[in-house]
């Protein structure tokens, strides 16, 4: 092989590999079961959000299981509403901060954070306390208020959500960590891990118009999935969600669920807020499509009380 051919061929191979990775499923290139993975889910109760995460992620094998050296990480909390932390309309800022710190400790090169908010984004970022918490931890807080940030992707396996526009920071990141907050929700009864991804797309109205539950489940077909779901059940909005009318809506459950299976995570979260997961359509749809497992009895769950 001549040197020139080698260069051309290797460039082509590199491009093909890169393209293959961008189409997703590249995780299959590496062994599925890594040492230390013993639990499907870790649930913690009785501590502060950050302390519960410290303990929980340790039990789950540490952040190094998910974040490699030099990687670009996206941490996706829920920052949808212009509400202060005590309303629990957005993810607890202390938890967000601790998650970012763990990402950096695991070797992340850069941690990004954004949410396509419903209320005015400047106010949401500020008043939720998340912008400050994230910046203090060293993350890059990225706006998501302009359509120009979004790129169209197709989800061939989807039933309703065949195409959607997703924030470029998500598309460019190596690792996605989902940090939703559990809440009652007027549209879907509850919101948690899967529904939190409505904050990475531009046109949410499409989801509402085209069978909302199906679209939420469909998003889980998208190749760039979050590798870890850290569900904030510290303060939980039990009614009048997703915004809440006053602090009376909030119950202090002082809990947290850490899992790699968002269908399982949502099923467990549903029980935390006293809902039957069978009656939350998107959980059932996702389960039936093989996107996760809502049968909590068949999972290996580590439960910790602090």
């Amino acid at each position, binding site marked *: 092989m001549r040197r020139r051919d080698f260069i051309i061929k290797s460039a082509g191979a590199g491009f093909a590999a890169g393209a293959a990775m961008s189409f997703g499923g590249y995780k299959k290139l590496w062994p599925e079961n890594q040492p230390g993975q013993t639990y499907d889910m870790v*649930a913690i*109760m009785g501590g502060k959000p950050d302390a519960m995460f410290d303990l929980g992620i340790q039990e789950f094998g540490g952040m190094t299981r998910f974040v490699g050296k030099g990687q670009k990480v996206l941490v996706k909390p829920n920052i949808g509403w*212009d509400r202060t932390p005590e309303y629990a309309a957005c993810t607890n800022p202390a938890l967000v901060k601790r998650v970012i710190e763990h990402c950096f400790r695991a070797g992340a090169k*850069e941690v990004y954070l954004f949410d396509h908010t*419903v*209320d*005015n984004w*400047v*106010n949401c970022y500020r008043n939720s306390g998340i912008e400050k918490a994230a910046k203090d931890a060293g993350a*890059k*807080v*990225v*706006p998501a*208020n*302009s359509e*120009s*940030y979004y790129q169209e992707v197709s989800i061939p396996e989807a039933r309703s959500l065949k195409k959607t526009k997703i924030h470029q920071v998500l598309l460019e990141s190596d690792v996605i960590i989902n940090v939703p907050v559990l809440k009652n*929700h*007027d*549209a*879907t*009864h509850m919101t948690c891990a899967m529904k939190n991804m409505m904050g990475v797309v531009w046109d*949410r*109205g*499409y989801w*509402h*118009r*085209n*069978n*909302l*539950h*199906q679209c939420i489940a469909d998003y889980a077909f998208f190749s760039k999935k979050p590798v870890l779901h850290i569900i904030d059940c510290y303060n*939980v909005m*039990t*009614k*009048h*969600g*997703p*915004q809440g*009318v*006053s602090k*009376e*809506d*909030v*119950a202090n*459950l002082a*809990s947290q669920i850490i899992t790699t299976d968002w269908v399982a995570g949502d*099923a*467990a979260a549903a*029980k*935390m*807020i*006293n809902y039957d997961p069978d*009656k*939350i*359509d998107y959980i059932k749809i996702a389960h039936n499509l093989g996107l996760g497992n809502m049968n*909590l009895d068949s999972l290996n*769950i580590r*439960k910790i*009380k602090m």
Partner: protein
Amino acid sequence: MTSKALKYIRLATALAIFAVFCVLFLDIRHLLPEEFFDIPLWFQFAPSAIKFISAGEAAATGFIAVLILTVLTGRSYCSFLCPLGIMQDLISRAGGKIKRRYRRFGFKKPHTVLRYTILAVTLLFAVFGGLYFITLLDPYSIFGRFMTYFARPVITGINNVLAHIFERFDVYAIVPLHFPSFKAYVYIIPSLFLLLTGVMSLIKGRLYCNTVCPVGTFLGLISRISLLRFKFDDSKCTKCGRCAIACKSSCIDFLNKNIDNSRCVVCFNCINSCPDKAISYGFVRFSSAEKKVDRKKRELIGGTLLLLLGLSGRSSGQEKNTPVPQKASTVKEKKTSPVTPPGSTGIENFISKCTACSLCVSACPNNVLVPSFDQYGIAGIMQPHMDYHKGFCAYECTRCLEICPTGALLPLLPEAKKLTKIGKAIFVRENCIVETEHTACGACAESCPTKAVHMVPFIGNLTIPETNDDICIGCGHCEHACPVTPYKAIYVDGLPVHTAAKKPENIQTDLKHDDFPF
């Protein structure tokens, strides 16, 4: 005084004031604290007068300060404080660079009939009809519209281009912003006035201010009795005419050594143009010749002042112009009344005080305020209303009420604003996705900050919206969020007179887990 420094003091002040007004309207990221707006807006003549006369706002005494200033110094307001005047001075300077003769003015006779007719019509309409002519001709409001509909889009466009450049370098300090675009009719009036003031100032200095502008004409009446004014020193003047050529107002008749004080805007250019220091600015000595005409002038001024004061009695007499709610339809969005911002207390009050300066349109962080076409009747063109297809009124936000210079919007405490009902949500079941598709939606209910829109059981696991008029404040978030097209399944109809909504009631949740429920 014959000091050349006077002109430079004028220049420095005017540029500073101009910069402040540009910042007010071009604060595209809404970073300015509301208090910053108060001082420059306080002395804007027409807005302050409207606020004082119609709302009885004791703090709105800026126009009185301007009157006192005028009695003391003449029309210095026009040169020092009026943003439109300063803008025209800048254009005139540019004109001089293009063609020298554009900056060589010379004495011209005043367009007396025209200017007093415009002033009289403006005031008569203000008293008996409505604010139409003030809205159209108030210089601050004209300037505000230039900034809002021309300058702001340009600045936003530059910002957005910069944002995309920075974004490539992974820097997100500059963020792309909503580009302010409006329907075509919005640009008609600002364009006409940009043309009018632009061309007139480019080639004729302050001709607009001395012919069309009712504030200029009105202050001109008062400046006839001003204490400080320009005068000739007969012993020094060589009748070279340089002062007349330098005078932007074309008001120096150097042959007769006469200065038309009603048109002089106190720019001090004449002092600096005079090689012999023959023009000075100082206290006037009333000669007997002047006293002869004094009485007529004073009657005119007094009459005009009375006319202005008469505004107060007429400020609420505009029933005939208020849109009357029509019969509501149930399938299509059928709005019977436009929605006015909270703090306006209702349509009638709002349209009788708003001069369409568009500061609120610029300042609204949610882009919900847009200029009207005929929502308030064609006479209310450019007065803003809430367009819930473009945005919604954020629950916690009181920005527009804090900054309104005319009192068309009065400040409300955030807690009061959250209970001010400006419209009511109307649910059109026939359009709703839950009804037509039998799939879940709830976009309206999730957006509702008071839960006036909430979901009730429908078929199976489905829920469908229901509205509670008692606690609905008409913020329009439901209408904005409703994904149905082309007609929304929920919309807000304006209340011609705002009312108080009930406070949403709530009970403490009792959800508790002693152990994991799974």
